[in-house]
């Protein structure tokens, strides 16, 4: 029986596109508020505080929830009217526990492959391949109930991969893992993105993970889009120049400020923002004019946690 192929869309068209997407629960709660965003290929991080609307957005994109307004297309399919066709090309790893305890990983992933439409022989081969890829070997024959949290997360990832989706949606994939487990899962996700050549949308509240694994970032807050851009664009805009001088630091800071540079202090250092004109010449010239020694001139950049939690960074610095 024929299965609907992926729509013939332009290679430059976004994988996920929403227009004025909204989801209201009752009269009070607006979980997603007129969200318009276009997400391309690669690994994209979806971040936001608890209650920001991440899970609601993911469920709408998977066709598990109906939006109350606006539209969304994923892989060229409309999320409302073309759900069965859309879901054939999606893989989903939920945040919550979702595995039966009395079935082995082999049997369960094989079953999920069959439910995805793979013929029996192909399902067996594919299940074995993905379980090997996620690092489950002899343990795959034991009941899932005997697994550690890390092993269960791997099974969840394996069932999301087994039918060779075009887009993988991971909701908090490192949830419940210890630091080593988290590292291993992030490496696995990165490898999946490159070796399986599939695009990934990954939701996480841990910005360090997002920065490590993702190429793009979508930030939402209160159901609204805050910003959508590449990771490099996010952090480049927050690059700073660390300056250390032998004396008259405050005077140097004042002169640079009067020249239009954004200057802050971090211990004995001056941090000069580099989001506009490069400050190198200005720092050199002012330091020379003040007749102070230039001890350090070092480019640094903020990480995502600095961008999204500046108050905590300041508190730690003090």
């Amino acid at each position, binding site marked *: *029986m*024929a*299965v609907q192929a992926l729509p013939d869309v332009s290679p430059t068209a976004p994988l996920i596109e929403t227009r004025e997407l909204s989801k209201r629960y009752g009269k009070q709660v607006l979980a997603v508020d007129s969200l318009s965003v276009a997400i391309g290929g690669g690994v994209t991080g979806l971040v936001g505080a608890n209650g920001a609307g991440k899970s609601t957005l993911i469920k709408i994109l*998977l066709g*598990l929830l109906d939006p109350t307004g606006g539209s969304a297309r994923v892989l060229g399919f409309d999320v409302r009217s073309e*759900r*069965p*066709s859309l*879901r*054939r090309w*999606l893989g*989903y790893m*939920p945040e*919550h*526990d*979702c*595995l*039966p*305890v*009395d*079935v082995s990983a082999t*049997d369960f992933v094989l*079953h*999920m492959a*069959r*439910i*995805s*439409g*793979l*013929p029996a022989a*192909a399902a067996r081969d594919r299940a074995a391949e993905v379980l090997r890829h996620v690092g489950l070997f002899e343990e795959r024959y034991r009941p899932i109930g005997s697994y550690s949290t890390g092993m269960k997360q791997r099974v969840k990832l394996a*069932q999301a991969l087994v*039918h060779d989706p075009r887009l993988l949606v991971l909701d908090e994939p490192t949830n419940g893992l210890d630091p080593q487990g988290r590292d291993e899962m992030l490496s696995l996700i990165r490898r999946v993105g490159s070796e399986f050549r599939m695009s990934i949308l990954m939701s996480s509240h841990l910005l360090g993970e997002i920065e490590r694994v993702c190429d793009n970032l979508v930030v939402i807050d209160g159901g609204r889009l805050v910003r959508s851009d590449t990771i490099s664009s996010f952090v480049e805009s927050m690059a700073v120049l660390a300056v250390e001088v032998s004396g008259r630091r405050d005077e140097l800071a004042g002169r640079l400020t009067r020249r239009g540079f954004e200057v802050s202090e971090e211990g004995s250092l001056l941090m000069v923002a580099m989001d506009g004109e490069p400050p190198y010449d200005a720092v050199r010239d002012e330091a020379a004019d003040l007749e102070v020694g230039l001890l350090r001139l070092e480019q640094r950049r903020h990480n995502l946690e600095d961008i999204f939690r500046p108050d905590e960074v300041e508190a730690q610095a003090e």
Partner: protein
Amino acid sequence: MRLGRAFVVLALLSYSFQAVFGLGRSTVAKVIAIGLAVVAQIPALVQLGIAAIAPADLEFITPEDYFGIVSLVLVLFCAFTAPEIIGRDQRTRTLTLYFSRALSRSDYVTAKVGSLSLALMLVLLTPQLFLLVGRAVAGEDTLGYLRDNVDELAPILAGTLTVGLLMAAVSLTIASQTPRRALATGMVLAYFVTFTALGSILVETLTGGAQKYALLLSPFGVLEGAVLWLFSARPEPESEILKTGLGGRYYFAAAVVYTVVLLALLYRRLQRLAV
């Protein structure tokens, strides 16, 4: 290559059918279902054993009576297996994984009802076929007996299908109301016991038109009446069906209507479940 919707439903049906009998799971999961299935064969096997020793003295159980003899066993079978194949997916939250794939709620209902119906049909059909063959072998002309009684196959199959579908629809609709296995088992048992008793009480206490339709409240009453009609058989003299005086076709129609309504309720339940 991806197979289409029918193959996906068949895959889930096959998996659920195996789950009914605990295949691929622990020993405990197997014991109850397979044990009850074996118990449902016992009347037929005992009859065949007696027929082998003293065939002339034996009055075989007729196929249309077999459901009544093993009805309690079938209820226990449904009460223990329905929560296993539908409540378990809610308990483990595996429904999220099913519905994030190209599997619709209606496909899920079809597969689950299909799996339990098939299991019930297997449990009920096997002894009836044993008896049919047993009666043929006990006679002098086996092939002749089979030739003359091949007409029995159609009502046997139709009756088994009616029983399987209705009992599966009832049990799964009730079991889907809660992910808790023990509670679901109790609810299924309570339904069958309560409404069977209610039907019987109303038949004994009501008169006139109300009495005529009273047994339609009883699941066993409906199924017994439907099966008798399919076999064109008369109820026993002391039967409640005879007391009501309602034609067998009404019981069959009620079985069909109940099945359709219950399937709709099951579908609605699954639509409202948050995944």
